[in-house]
């Protein structure tokens, strides 16, 4: 072994001692290097939530709720009622460990179990009423022509009315009677002097939509195209603007649209923009880079900026999910997922590629019984193997804690571990190279 300080000499006995210690130091360094390699290649992800400090920025378990869907104040859970929370993790892990630290005032667990599922947070939302086509969509079925207006399906009384109003039959979306049943039937369109709500017009290359007999201009062509097809708008001259009052408010992008301004990407939802914190979040949310639209300052200015959209955030209103098994579409709205009858109905809500989910993932569950931690007085834990969730779409684990005691929780800690296996090592190396490649890609 080399000697960095050759010029500083020692007698033979002490030099032997030095060599011995030196070997030990380098061996220790080698062990340290191996240890560091293991924690880098097989990382453990920790997520936590403290009911003692619920507003802490360190809390990163999401959507903590009781059986009523409400946040359990001070961690109080009544017996037999479940506590649900979501953990967002990137990558595949081998085991998930959940530790529950009870308050001093809490009853002890008599029997408690934990169930886990994997998908996206928003896909765990309860299922709401199915929805049909979006307002403003022109559809045809069995020779009848309809416009979806005020949520209702309004049939054109006859072809003559349709043509007199300026609608082009060719641009109506062909669909089935089955798909149309999710939009309640409205009164027929029979008046040629007025347009039904959600009629769309193109005047001097700008798009307008009629809402409550007031015309609202789209902020840009691409904002319009995020909701409707180009050829759907009825061409009019500038004189038409005298027929209806013009709103000062402009129409923006469809909810769930992905836009970029400068170097940042944003999600548009409910009239607000949510800045996406990183490309890792973007990709792990299941979004496609092809859906990102570059927007101008004017387009951006119409929105109020919301808080950061991180890996811990649920998909916002306007997101469309599609199941990989049977191509079933869902729309996220008001913390519910609503099934959509068809891909054309989904396309009427969003022109983005839908986020792929697995219907099956809602039925695949991991389960474990909580055990008392022998090293901690009020702490209970259990471990769930995550192998069965491998390959499922989504990055969120939903945990449901079922107990029979009235408990008061101080802290929930979760840790996701990767086993040290050759397979995981190969995966880690592949992922690292992919990340480096991505880092240098322009």
């Amino acid at each position: 072994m080399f000697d960095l300080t050759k010029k500083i000499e020692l007698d033979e006995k002490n030099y032997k001692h030095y060599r011995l210690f030196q070997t030990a130091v380098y061996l220790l360094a080698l062990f340290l290097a191996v240890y560091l390699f293991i924690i880098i290649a097989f990382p453990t992800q920790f997520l936590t939530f403290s009911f003692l400090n619920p507003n802490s920025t360190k809390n990163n378990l999401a959507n903590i709720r009781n059986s009523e869907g409400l946040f359990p104040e001070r961690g109080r859970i009544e017996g037999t009622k479940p506590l649900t929370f979501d953990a967002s993790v990137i990558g595949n892990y081998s085991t998930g460990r959940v530790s529950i630290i009870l308050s001093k005032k809490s009853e002890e667990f008599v029997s408690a179990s934990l169930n886990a599922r994997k998908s996206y947070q928003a896909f765990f939302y309860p299922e709401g009423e199915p929805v049909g086509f979006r307002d403003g969509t022109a559809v045809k079925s069995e020779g009848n022509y309809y416009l979806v207006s005020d949520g209702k399906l309004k049939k054109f009384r006859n072809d003559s009315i349709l043509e007199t109003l300026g609608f082009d039959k060719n641009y109506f979306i062909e669909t089935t009677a089955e798909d149309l049943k999710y939009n309640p039937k409205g009164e027929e369109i029979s008046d040629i002097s007025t347009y039904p709500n959600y009629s769309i017009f193109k005047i001097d290359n700008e798009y307008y939509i009629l809402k409550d007999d007031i015309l609202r201009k789209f902020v840009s062509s691409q904002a319009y195209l995020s909701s409707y097809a180009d050829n759907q708008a009825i061409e009019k001259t500038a004189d038409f603007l005298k027929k209806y009052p013009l709103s000062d408010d402009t129409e923006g992008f469809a909810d769930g649209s992905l836009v970029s301004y400068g170097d940042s990407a944003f999600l548009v939802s409910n009239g607000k923009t949510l800045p996406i914190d990183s490309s890792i979040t973007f990709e792990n949310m299941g979004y496609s880079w092809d859906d990102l639209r570059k927007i101008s300052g004017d387009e951006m200015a119409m929105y109020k900026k919301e808080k950061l959209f991180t890996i811990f955030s649920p998909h916002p209103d306007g997101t469309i999910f599609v199941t990989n098994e049977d191509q079933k579409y869902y729309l996220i709205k008001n913390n519910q997922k609503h099934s959509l009858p068809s891909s054309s109905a989904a396309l009427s809500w969003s022109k983005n590629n839908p986020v792929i989910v697995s219907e099956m993932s809602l039925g695949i569950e991991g389960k474990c019984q909580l055990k008392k931690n022998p090293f901690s007085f009020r702490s209970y834990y259990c471990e769930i193997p995550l192998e069965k969730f491998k390959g499922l779409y989504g990055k969120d684990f939903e945990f449901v804690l079922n107990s029979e005691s009235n408990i008061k929780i101080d802290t929930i800690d979760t840790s996701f571990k990767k086993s040290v296996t050759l397979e995981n090592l190969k995966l880690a190396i592949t992922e690292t190279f992919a990340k480096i490649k991505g880092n240098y890609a322009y």
Partner: protein
Amino acid sequence: MLTKIKRENLIIIYKLLNDTLFIGLVFFLLALIGEGLLPGIITFHIGFSKIITVVFFNLAAVYLLANQLGIKADNDQTNKKTAYLLLFIVLLLVFNSLLKANIFFSLFILLVVVLIGIFIYKVIFEEN
């Protein structure tokens, strides 16, 4: 306290501290290269401040012991090959950090860094 320890033992400790300093610097350099290639890969697990603190205390201990033992640094012993290699790595890291910028702008910044480095070296090490 150091005076109570035998000189031979102090020399052993001094030599070992040189070894640990070398190990610390190798770790630091590898961490810098790793972090340059993939930001966050190291700092997500271990902060640079921790490595720097350990290296700094190691360096301080080497300095104190060298004073105690009357060991003087031999300036003629500078390993030019290692110095050039380290300089090359530093320049690569600087260039790497500017990779997303315009290539000519990156080269210009690199040139400025080299010039500043040369002048600082001259001011500190050149006599008169």
